[in-house]
Every structure is written in C-alpha cells, then in structure tokens.
C-alpha cells in the first residue's frame, strides 16, 4: 500500500513537535524471536512518542506485536534493537532498580499474574522491601485504599478474590514503587463489562491523583477510545497509523485496515462482512 504509507508519513504529528517533552520515546524498535533460519521479527521499526501525563493506546490483532512492544520497553524481552528513551535518556538492555521505580506494568490475566500462595500483603510489600522503602505497613494500607480495596483484603490469598479484585491488587502492586509510567497490557480483557467499567474508572482516577503516564495495549477499540488521547494501530509488527482520539471517533482513519477494525468493533453488519 504505497499510497497509504505516504499518508501515514504526513500525519505523524510528533515529528514536528520534537521539542515537546516526551516521557517515553521509542525509536526504530525491532524485536526478534528465535535464531538462525527460524528468526522472526515480531516488531518492525516502531517509533512512538508518549507525552508527559499522556495516555497512549496501541491497538491491533493478536500477533501484531503490540504486547511485544510493551514487553521490550519494560525489559521482559531482551532481543531488541533500536532506542528506548525515558525522559530523554536511553535505557540499556539490562535494567536497574531505578528503572523499576519509573516504569511498572499491569498484565492481562489477573488469574495468572498473582502468585497463588502469596497473600495480598506479601505481593504488595515485596517490591518495597527490595527497594528499601520505609513505612511498609502504611504504604500497603494506602495502596489498598487507593485501588478501592479496604484493609480487610490485606491478608487474603488470590483465590479468595474475584477477577476484578485481583486486577485491583495487580494495579496496587504496580503502584507500590510510585512509578511515573504504567504499561497496561490488556488490563480489562479478562473481565466482565461491569467490572471493566470499574477498573477503567480506577485507572482514570489514579492517573489524575498520581500524575501518571499510561501506555495501554488492547484489542478493544472502544476501551482505547475511552482511555487514550492518541492511538497507534499495529499490523504485522508495524505501526500502520497513528491518530488522535477525535479522528478515531469521527471514523476518519486513513488506512483501510483501521477502518475495518473500527467497523468490526461497532458490531455485526451483514452487508459489510457478508460479502468478503
């Protein structure tokens, strides 16, 4: 699609605004998996810029590399090249403790991301101990309060919590080290819609209170339209389009792929999908 490619180039607003302070900037990120002939490039030349206090969304289908971008940023994938800058300073492949205080991640499935034999208290206090924080007791209680769980939940095990409560614990854990950037990898896709609404509201509140910057990955366009100001669409490991939320709402995306995604998330339309 040579025509649409040039259209994407023209629309990149962040190229012109390079002077604005970016909290997180990814330049020409490539991620590879496997070796030799099996080597597979999951992310190709992704460049993204997230403003201080902004909320940036990455959407795409499974296998488009959207989660891999987040995992590369927080250091869970090692085989990457390119540049990842936080507050203008590039991060190395090996991350240190200071990095962990800046960036934390919330994962998709709260049933898999909490240790089944650790109490909520242990889950929340472990990062504090590792980083030598004081007043662990008070911090755990405040964190529980922040995410809308009371002190009653402190000594429970994950199996004694509902899916929504688990995700709140996972959010609390990510907030323990007072990070500035939160990476959210499909944080509500394992939850019912009513619980999803609660968690999304929680994210909005926390962002205001703690002045956080979000990077959110999801396949749900409605969620991303609700949460984010700027949205990147990924397909086959590449960013095919970056648009602001208004462009998305008014259904004026440039590429055919984004239009199809938008249409699909509006519901079933026999005429549109029946012919293909």
């Amino acid at each position, binding site marked *: 699609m040579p025509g649409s490619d040039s259209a994407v180039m023209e629309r990149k607003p962040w190229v012109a605004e390079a002077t604005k302070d970016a909290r997180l900037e990814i330049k020409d990120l490539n991620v590879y998996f496997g070796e030799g002939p099996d080597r597979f490039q999951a992310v190709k030349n992704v460049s993204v810029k997230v403003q201080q206090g902004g909320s940036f969304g990455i959407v795409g289908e499974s296998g488009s590399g959207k989660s891999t971008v987040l995992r590369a940023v927080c250091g869970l994938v090692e085989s990457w090249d390119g540049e990842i800058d936080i507050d203008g300073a590039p991060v190395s492949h090996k991350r240190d403790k200071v990095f962990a205080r800046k960036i934390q991640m919330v994962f998709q499935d709260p049933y898999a991301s909490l240790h089944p034999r650790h109490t909520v208290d242990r889950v929340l206090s472990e990062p504090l101990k590792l980083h030598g924080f004081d007043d662990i007791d008070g911090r755990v209680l405040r964190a529980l309060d922040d995410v809308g769980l009371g002190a009653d939940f402190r000594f429970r095990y994950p199996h004694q919590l509902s899916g929504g409560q688990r995700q709140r614990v996972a959010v609390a854990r990510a907030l323990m080290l007072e990070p500035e950037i939160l990476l959210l990898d499909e944080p509500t896709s394992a939850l019912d819609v009513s619980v999803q*609404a609660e968690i999304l509201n929680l994210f*909005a509140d926390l962002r205001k209170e703690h002045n956080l910057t979000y990077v959110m990955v999801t*396949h749900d366009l409605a969620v991303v339209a*609700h949460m984010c100001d700027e949205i990147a669409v990924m397909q086959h490991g590449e960013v095919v389009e970056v648009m602001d939320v208004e462009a998305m*709402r008014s259904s004026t995306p440039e590429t055919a792929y984004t239009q199809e995604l938008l249409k699909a998330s*509006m*519901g*079933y339309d026999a005429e549109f999908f029946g012919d293909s």
Partner: protein
Amino acid sequence: MSDTLLSVEDLWVRFPTRSGTVDAVRGISFSVGRERVGIVGESGSGKSMTGRSILRLIRSPGQMEAKSIKFNGENLLDYSERQMRKIRGHQISMVMQDPKFSLNPVHTVGKQICEALRLHTKSSRREARQGALEMLEAVQIRNPERVFNSYPHELSGGMGQRVMIAMMLITDPKLLIADEPTSALDVTVQMKVLAIMDKLVQERGMGLIFISHDLNLVSSFCDRIIIMYAGRIVETCKASELHNATHPYTRGLLNALPRIEEPKGRLEALQRQDSWKQEVSVDARV
C-alpha cells in the same frame, strides 16, 4: 417464527457443594424458532449451563431438572442416553468457544469431519470425503484439500473455528447452539466467521442459539435477546429494541460499555441489587 423448534419449561441446574446447593440456572423458560436468539449474561449467569442442558450435557455432580425440553414436539427428557446420542450432533449441534480444545489434536481435520457425517448418516467413505470438502468450501476455506489433510495445530484460530462450524453443520442439524463461538478470535476474523455462520443458518432455515457476554455484538447479530443474571432471565426483547430495555441490570450493562461514538468522562459502574436475584424469571417463550 411461528413454528417453534425448541421449547424449554422451568429449567433448573444445581450443583451440590460442601456448603450447600448452588443453583446455576433457576427455573427459566424460553423457546426458539427458526430465528437467531442471543443469550447474554456475565460470567456465572448460567448462560453456558443453559446451552449445555438442552443437550443434557451437564456433568455429574451437576443435576438438571425441567418440566419439559420439547424439541420438534418430543420431550428430550424422556429420551434414553442412546436416543440422545442420535440428537446430539445430528439434530442439535453445538459450537464451543475455543477450537483448540474442541478439536482432537491427533487426528486430521478431514477425518474428524468425516466421522461426524458417517456417524449420523449412511454414507460411504468417498461420499463423506466429498461432503467434508464441500462443507469446508461452504465455510470459505480457500484450499479445502490442504485443510482436510491438516492437523488442528496447523490451523489459525479463525480457520479452526470455521472447521468446527463445518463439522457441526455437515449433518444438517435443525438447531445450532453456539457458545461464545468467536470470543477467542480477533474482531475482524470474528465478523467473518459470524457472517459465514449467519449465511449458512439462514440458507438452511435453522434455529440458532447464540450465547455470548458481548451485548453489543448480540444486539447487532441476533433477532431476539434473552438477558440472564444469576441463573434467571431478567429481561427479553427484540434485538432492535435493546436500547429501550427497562430492567436496571440491562440498563447498567449498556451504560457500563465504553462507546466509540459517544465519549463519556466516567463509565457508570453497575450497582447490583440483591432483589434481582429474588425476582421471578421472565418467561421468554413466544
């Protein structure tokens, strides 16, 4: 919608546990004609149990009980296990959520489709193979021969689900129960699979029970909607009238959905009321 295919009266599903009996489905009645009926609810609302109990597939220690489950005028509750096996997959088929878990990993796709056909009809191997290839083509698989000879792990999620639909429709059932058939798929693939299912169901004049948690999807895909909460039917309406739904639970679900067209500062969190659990189930028979 005049001819009723399936009519369920006063269905209960119970699970005895150490701390007393849990009622997963509490006395619901509904009917399905040659139409697309959506059953919507959150996890734990009993929607999947309802689908399974039509085919009497509730596993022990679960128990099901009903006044009647009438299919084509016959009460399925009076049938023996042997007679039920003739119904399952032949008269009433079921498509499950994830093709990864519903296809046998050690047999080729073709073998499994042929098996379904040969179990229920007297057809030769060659006829079965021919039928399977035609069916694979009907679900818009571009290279039926290749897919016929491949194993489930060689297929993508969308292809796997098309194979499942092919397998379930090859016996020409009268009723198809689809339990979250597209939840494991990407949105655009999801729509293509739905379009295929829609077309085949319409062409063959089948009834469809579409079980899903996605209110938006169900309202755009089905003719009629049944909304379940805590094992009961709280509301039923035409899909086109969903926006006029009156029950606070339905309204709450609708308001909790973020929408692309209408931005909201805050999403409305659903305030559950205990009284909803006590209400009498709405009769969804037509």
